């Protein structure tokens, strides 16, 4: 078995950065939305960015991590997003794909950010139906990610962990556990991370997301603007040691393209090397 894979986000259009990343990472994770272009309301993958990825298709694995599916919109998922995903599936070999457990559109209107869902029976049933349809359509593993709650929570039938467990149990989909997002929820809303992890079936986790953000008006936000902090790395290690997620396959360092130059390509490369040292040899697969 291979040890846990280490990868990072890449949004295309930075050939020098891509060249630097390729020898370090096992995979690149990209969002169809950030590769997209649009004309007259019809979205498609930017041909130059697609060509760039096709060029390295046999050198590195690809994971897709969406932003714009809006799996939780009461009035349906984004058809534009599915069209983008179709195009990527037609052109690239994708290992798995994922989305955030949230909604971004209401009646076609873009909220401008992702909003978490109420954990009710209605939502559970709707999300499970959609996950089943997506899995049937694309035939590769599909994962959902925990999202930072920005708004106060609406009263719910289920706890955070129970809701995630039920979605995974009902559909067979996997989880991305965004460890920094857990820290944000703990800071902003008092989420008890330990209780959450004890209740979560950690065997659903296939991927970790590691990132950073910054404080805004007293809130911890998930704008991925820098290097991963020690507290996030320590929590990651603690989860590996204490909860031993048996199906964990990948750890992704997330950074927004807007911050690549500010953080610096060298620092990003060092961050990935550091993750390898910390986690590559310590995955369950190698224990």
């Amino acid at each position, binding site marked *: 078995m291979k040890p846990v894979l280490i990868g990072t986000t890449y949004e295309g259009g930075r050939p020098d950065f891509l060249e630097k990343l390729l020898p370090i990472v096992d995979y690149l994770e990209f969002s169809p939305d950030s590769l997209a272009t649009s*004309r007259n309301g019809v979205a498609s993958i930017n041909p130059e960015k697609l060509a760039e990825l096709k060029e390295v298709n046999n050198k590195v694995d690809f994971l897709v991590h969406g932003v714009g599916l809006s799996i939780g919109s*009461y009035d349906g998922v984004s058809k534009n997003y599915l069209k983008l995903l179709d195009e990527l599936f037609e052109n690239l070999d994708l290992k798995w794909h994922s989305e955030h457990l949230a909604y971004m559109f209401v009646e076609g209107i*873009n*909220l*401008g950010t992702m909003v978490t869902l109420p954990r009710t029976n209605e939502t559970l049933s709707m999300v499970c139906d959609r996950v089943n349809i997506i899995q049937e359509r694309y035939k590769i593993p599909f994962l959902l990610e925990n999202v930072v709650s920005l708004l106060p929570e609406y009263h719910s*039938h289920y706890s955070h962990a129970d809701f995630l467990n039920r979605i995974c149990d009902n559909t067979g989909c996997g989880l991305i556990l965004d460890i920094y997002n857990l820290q944000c929820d703990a800071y902003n809303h008092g989420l008890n991370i330990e209780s959450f992890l004890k209740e979560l079936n950690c065997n659903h986790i296939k991927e970790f997301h590691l990132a950073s953000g910054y404080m805004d008006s007293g*809130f911890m936000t998930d704008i991925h603007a820098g290097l991963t902090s020690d507290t996030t790395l320590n929590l990651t290690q603690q989860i590996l040691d204490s909860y031993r997620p048996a199906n964990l396959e990948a750890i992704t360092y997330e950074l927004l393209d807007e911050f690549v130059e500010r953080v610096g390509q060298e620092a990003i490369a060092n961050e990935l090397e550091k993750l390898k040292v910390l986690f590559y040899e310590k995955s369950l697969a190698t224990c």
Partner: protein
Amino acid sequence: MKNHLPLADLQQKILGLVKDSYLPECTDENYFHSVSKSPNLQLVRAIALWWRQNHLERYCFFTARFLKATGQMETTTARYFQASNHSSYIEETGPDFLHWLSKNTIGLTSIIARFELGMIAINKNEVYEDEIFWPCDPFPIIYGLVQNDLSNESIQSGEFCMTLSDKIIGSFEVEEISPFQFQPIPPYL
């Protein structure tokens, strides 16, 4: 156990709160009253605006730099995005924003948006013709924006006609015009 609002109703109310187009009524659950007064809602609006400004800064950096230099970035983009629905794609939002600016603002803000709209179209090899009257010399302003160092010294008096065209090498020409030819536009600065 409390009754839950149907997801459709919940999301429509959240949309209204985020867009500032809905005020909770006395029949609404306390939840919506508390969200409407919460700093969390301000944060959601701020993050949504941050993303959009970020995209605009990449798409139309001349105009974005001008708006920032003149302290208009926050209010202008908030007014634009609050007004109605917008595409998720910057290739559509970008030109729409510049069109909106050129029609809904005055003086140099409108002029620079129109100038950049033309430059973007020409750079995309589109057929394009426009004639813009400037109430000051455009070159120091363009230079100031390229250097990200716009100051009051960049605004030098004069009346100029700029012709933008895909047929002109360099995309535009500028000619100083005499006062009686000039169609005045109130300067922003």
